[in-house]
């Protein structure tokens, strides 16, 4: 039974990270109807920037909490400006182009970011020195460490904050209006360009924090890590109902838990035939199953055009 609780906890932590990345996908999709392929790579940049900053600040002798805070801030600034520039350069000029065009530029931007990162950080794995050794506590026969608790709480705060922002701020109202109908929103005096830029800014900033969490949790990063992470986060967004912010949160948590449980039990269930190296397939299977059985996702509304 303790394996179950342990995998549930691992899944919750993993799921919180997926959910944060999924928010970036779902917000952009909700407003532009565009899959921002480069979002996973923006998260990767967040992870690698914070890894570098943590190393530098730690070497400079700053206390760990301060260097973590500064590294996170640095990553947020870098990713937010990256997301903003991507929208400005690669997506805005194509606002009225056929659907395929922005999708292809998105793939191009994704490749550009990946290989720019390969140039900056090299192609080897970036390891974070063990500067923090979070103490762990026993809970129902499973081990939880403080880092895991911190990740889940911080993720919950960010999601809550974002949902509040969308529903109660002036900008959030403009975002919802643009999502419903960009043309009418702009007639009502909403600066839709600014709203879209803001969406990219927010999504990328949240992605940066997810990147920081990934690098702290796993301790290693890689220029290609954004691909798998992005794909899983996208799956999470689809699972929850793409375009729906609450759905992204639920989808992320669910996917994390499904994946952890499946990876933990697959060897047992298949009699040792299949190992946890099949772990990465689950996300795709979930994606295909969702699209087959409930294409609008868990919380999404049915729309004839979308799926």
């Amino acid at each position, binding site marked *: 039974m303790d394996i179950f609780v342990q995998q549930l906890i691992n899944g919750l932590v993993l799921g919180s990270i997926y959910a944060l990345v999924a928010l970036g996908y779902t917000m952009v999709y909700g407003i532009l109807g*565009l899959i921002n392929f480069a979002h996973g790579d923006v998260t990767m940049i967040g992870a690698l920037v914070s890894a570098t900053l943590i190393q530098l600040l730690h070497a400079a002798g700053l206390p760990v909490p301060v260097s973590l805070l500064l590294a996170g801030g640095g990553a947020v600034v870098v990713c937010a400006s990256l997301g903003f520039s991507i929208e400005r350069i*690669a997506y805005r000029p194509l606002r009225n182009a056929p659907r395929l065009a922005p999708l292809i530029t998105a793939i*191009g*931007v994704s*490749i550009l970011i990946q*290989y720019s990162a390969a140039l900056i950080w090299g192609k080897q794995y970036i390891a974070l020195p063990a500067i923090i050794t979070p103490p762990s506590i026993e809970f129902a026969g499973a081990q939880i460490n403080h880092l895991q608790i911190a990740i889940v709480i911080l993720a919950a705060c960010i999601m809550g904050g974002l949902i509040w922002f969308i529903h109660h701020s002036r900008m959030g109202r403009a975002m919802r209006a643009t999502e419903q109908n960009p043309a009418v929103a702009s007639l009502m005096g909403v600066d839709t360009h600014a709203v879209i830029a803001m969406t990219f800014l927010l999504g990328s900033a949240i992605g940066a924090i997810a990147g920081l969490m990934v690098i702290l949790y796993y301790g290693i990063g890689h220029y290609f890590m954004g691909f798998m992470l992005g794909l899983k986060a996208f799956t999470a967004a689809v699972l929850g109902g793409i375009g729906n912010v609450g759905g992204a949160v639920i989808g992320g948590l669910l996917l994390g838990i499904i994946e952890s449980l499946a990876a933990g039990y697959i060897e047992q269930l298949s009699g040792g035939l299949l190992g946890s190296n099949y772990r990465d397939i689950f996300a*795709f299977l979930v*994606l295909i199953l969702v699209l*087959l059985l409930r*294409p609008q996702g868990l919380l999404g509304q049915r729309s004839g055009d979308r799926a």
Partner: protein
Amino acid sequence: MTSLRYASWSRQLLIISALIVAPFAIEMLLGRSWLRITDVALLYVMLALGLNIVVGFAGLLDLGYIAFFAVGAYSYALLASPQLAIHAPVLVIIPVGAALAALFGIALGAPTLRLRGDYLAIVTLGFGEIIRVLLNNLNRPINITNGPQGITRIDPLHISQFSFGHSHSLGGITFTPLHQYYLIFLAFVLITILISVRLEHSRIGRAWRAIRDDELAAQAMGIHTRNLKLLAFAMGASFGGVAGCLFASFQGFISPESFQLIDSVMILCMVVLGGIGHIGGVILGALLLTILPETLRYIGPLQQQIFGTVYIDPADLRMLLFGLALVLMMLLRPRGLWPKRQLTGQLTNRGG
């Protein structure tokens, strides 16, 4: 009219004889490694034309196309290597490879029929990854694919006693394996072009175009969109499968390494860069994107000479340029380097 047709026939004859002489010229002027690159370029032309059926004709964005190439390559490798100790004749394997790839195409197409462009892109991408993970892991409990090590000692292409792996001489001219593979690949490319051209102007091709431009309207006009979309997937996939068979026989060794997402993206690049839906453009795109990156290999030594060290790995530079090319193409020339003429022009010509 007859003279015109005669002229076009003689021109075609000229082109074909130039294509047959080309490998000798390439080997003499540029060396053997470039002949090898040319052979690979022909395979990519086949792949790009196959993907063009799916993306260009039917408008279904497929980001996992390399999976069908992999299916074809592994069918050949398993049926003609010591791996399973089977050495089936080529004339059996290639149809099997094509059929298997088409089956996988339908398997991918069926659940994704209702999906719109960008969803389809993600699902096909996931499909490509699933195939790669399977190839990597199907070495236990029963060793089928030999996992990440791949399959070695694959039989060269052979038709009864004639093996493409050995040199043959005819009338005093020696044909090395590279020459022979060039000719057989060229034959396959020409068949692919022929099928593509015929398809484009057929009832099926027009139906695909209608689906691409407006699926709902196409459906209202009585086009059976489900079957036609599946057909597009199956046709495109079978081209990929045949190319995969040829690839396995040509290389003699395959591993899951050769079938990554980036390869799917590269084939898509060829289609997009050349001109989506335009056969000539797609061929141009495939040739450009196979040959231009090869010239980048001189960049490494050049950097060494000028700066003393290699700052940018040529392979990385290639990827950076790919990414940049994709973005710039969409921004500046969204219809490709050599796009298809607009439909309106065709209509007015027909009217006269």
